[in-house]
Each structure stands twice: as C-alpha cells, then as structure tokens.
C-alpha cells in the first residue's frame, strides 16, 4: 500500500513552512516577553515629537513599568527596538547596527507615521524608509505622534496582552463594548451612526 499525494494534504511550499516557523517563533517571543520587556528606543531621523511621547511613558501618569516594560540604555540589553523617524541615509547604518547587536529573540516596533510610511518626509531624497524595507516589523504604532496611550496599546499588542482595534482599516469594538452589545449592532464606529459618538451632520 502506497501513500498517495492526496493523502498528505495539499502541496506545501518551502515558503509556507518558513512562514509558519516564523509565526511560531514570534508567538514564542510574545510569550517570553509577556511580563518583562526591555525596550531600546532608536531615533532614526525623528522630529523628536515621538521621543517626547516615549518620555511621558515612564512618568507617574502612564507608568509603563507597572506592565513590566522598561526602557534601557543599550540595544544589547533590549528585547525590542522601538524605531521612530523616517530612516534617513545617515542613521540607517546606526539603526542596522543596533538591530544586529540585539540578543535573539527580538521584536521591532515602528512608532509614528515616519517609520511606517515616511509621512511628511516620504518623498525626501535623504530618506531610506519605510522601516519594513530594512527590518522585520512586529508592530506598527501609527500617529503623528501617537498618544502615550496609543504607544502603550501598541506595546501590549506586541506582547499579546491587547487586541488590535483596527483590522483592514475598520475599527473593531473593544472587549467591553462587545460585552455591552453582543449582537454587534452599534458597537463599531463604522458606519458612523454608532452609539455614544458625535455625528458631524
């Protein structure tokens, strides 16, 4: 009795397997860093608005340390690289060096519009970004700059401790909104006749 091709399921390519292995590795990294994440913040040509927001994270109001997250002084001590700014030509090498010396497993977060897309600097001759051309990005934190709560949401999302609010550009109801409205009739803000939101007309 021989094993037919149809018995072992659809043909898998090497790409699929690498994809699955990569996803399993990332899940393992999320589990590993769940209660303890050290971040190295790298300015790759930022206007410093994002840095101010990162500064407020460690203050008493947002207090990121209570989640086990801290900001460290060297990429050699870090689990996550938090990149701000469009990647300029001059800082591309420094960014790649910082990534290279990080211990495995490591996460990369793109914070602000600049490393995600380029934003207002997108067409500049001096910009090498967006970041996902250079490094594998684990979490995208958009905003110009993102509020400290938005950064916190992004970090917790990277650790698997928060849910994504945006899927395919559509705003998702939060856990508490779903609990209040299980049918999902008015939980989302899209289309805009949602509960508890101002309408413009």
């Amino acid at each position, binding site marked *: 009795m021989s094993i037919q091709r149809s018995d072992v399921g659809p043909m898998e390519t090497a790409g699929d397997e690498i994809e699955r292995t990569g996803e399993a590795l990332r899940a393992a990294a999320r589990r590993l860093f769940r209660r303890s994440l050290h971040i190295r913040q790298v300015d790759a040509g930022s206007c410093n608005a994002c840095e101010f927001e990162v500064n407020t994270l460690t203050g*008493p*109001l*947002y*207090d990121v340390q*209570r*989640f086990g997250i801290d900001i460290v002084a060297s990429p050699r001590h870090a689990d996550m690289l938090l990149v701000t700014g469009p990647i300029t030509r001059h800082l591309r090498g420094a960014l790649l060096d910082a990534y290279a010396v990080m211990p495995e497993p490591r996460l990369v977060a793109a914070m602000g*519009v600049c490393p*995600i*897309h*380029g*934003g*207002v600097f*997108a*067409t500049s001759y001096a910009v090498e970004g*967006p970041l*996902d051309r250079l490094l594998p*990005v*684990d*979490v*995208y*934190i*958009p*905003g*110009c700059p*993102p*509020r400290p*709560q*938005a950064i*916190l*949401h*992004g970090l917790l*999302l*990277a650790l698997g401790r*928060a849910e*994504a*609010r*945006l*899927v*395919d*550009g*559509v*705003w998702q109801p*939060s*856990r*508490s*909104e779903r609990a209040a409205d299980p049918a999902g009739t008015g939980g989302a*803000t*899209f*289309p*805009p006749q949602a509960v*508890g*939101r101002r309408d*413009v*007309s």
Partner: protein
Amino acid sequence: MWRIITWAWRTGVITAAPRALEGPAPAGTKGRPALDPERCIGDGACERACPTGAIALGPVAPPEHAAGLARRPFRLDYGACIFCGRCAEACGPAALRMTEDYALSTRRREDLVLRATVPAVAGGGADARPAPRAAEETK
C-alpha cells in the same frame, strides 16, 4: 516637609488605569478620519487636501458611464495619516470626519489600510490633477 507629605496624600494616585485605553478620549483629541461611503460623492477633494498622500482615489470611470453609476476605489492609509483633519475640512458632504480613535496599532501593515468604493463624479474634472506628492506606495 509635613506640608509636602500632606500635599502628596491629598493628590492621591494619578496613574491612568489600563482601561483608559478603551474609554473616551479628552475633548479635542484628533484620531483617525472615518469615511461614510454613503455620503461620499467621490470628487477627490480629500485627496488633493492630504499633505502626505494617505488618501488615494482610483481613476474616474470613462465618460460613457451614466452619471451616478460609475464607481471608483477609495484607499485611506492610516499608516500615512497624520490626523491633521484637512480632508474632513475639505469634504463638502461631510463623508470624512475626524473620530477620537487613536489606539490604531496593528501587527500587519495591511490592517492599516481602509479600502472602499465610492461614486465617481461625472465628467472626471478631478482627473487632470498631478499625481499626489507621496505617490510612492509601500505595499
């Protein structure tokens, strides 16, 4: 010294609770712009007003299409949007409006892109404009 201690005691805990992530944002917070495809007339005013090229409308339909039937794709990239609100100001029928949703983090780049289909204006007057400044697509 005693005054400082009593002052600190009266102030209490000011740290924001994690559930503040889900609560309402303070008044005046600029979040993501949301699109109502029912109200949109597809004239491309938002696309011309956008400083980063986050909004992109597809080509208008050829003129043989009957007015009101032609549709064009609408693409809004929250990864490029800086929440300036110019699109909402430029939008005549108030189809685009600024919301207070700010926690937009995602794990996939594609999740940041809103795609919709909107009506195309008859005549295609917006078609003669130059390409948007940030025409380079990331995906």
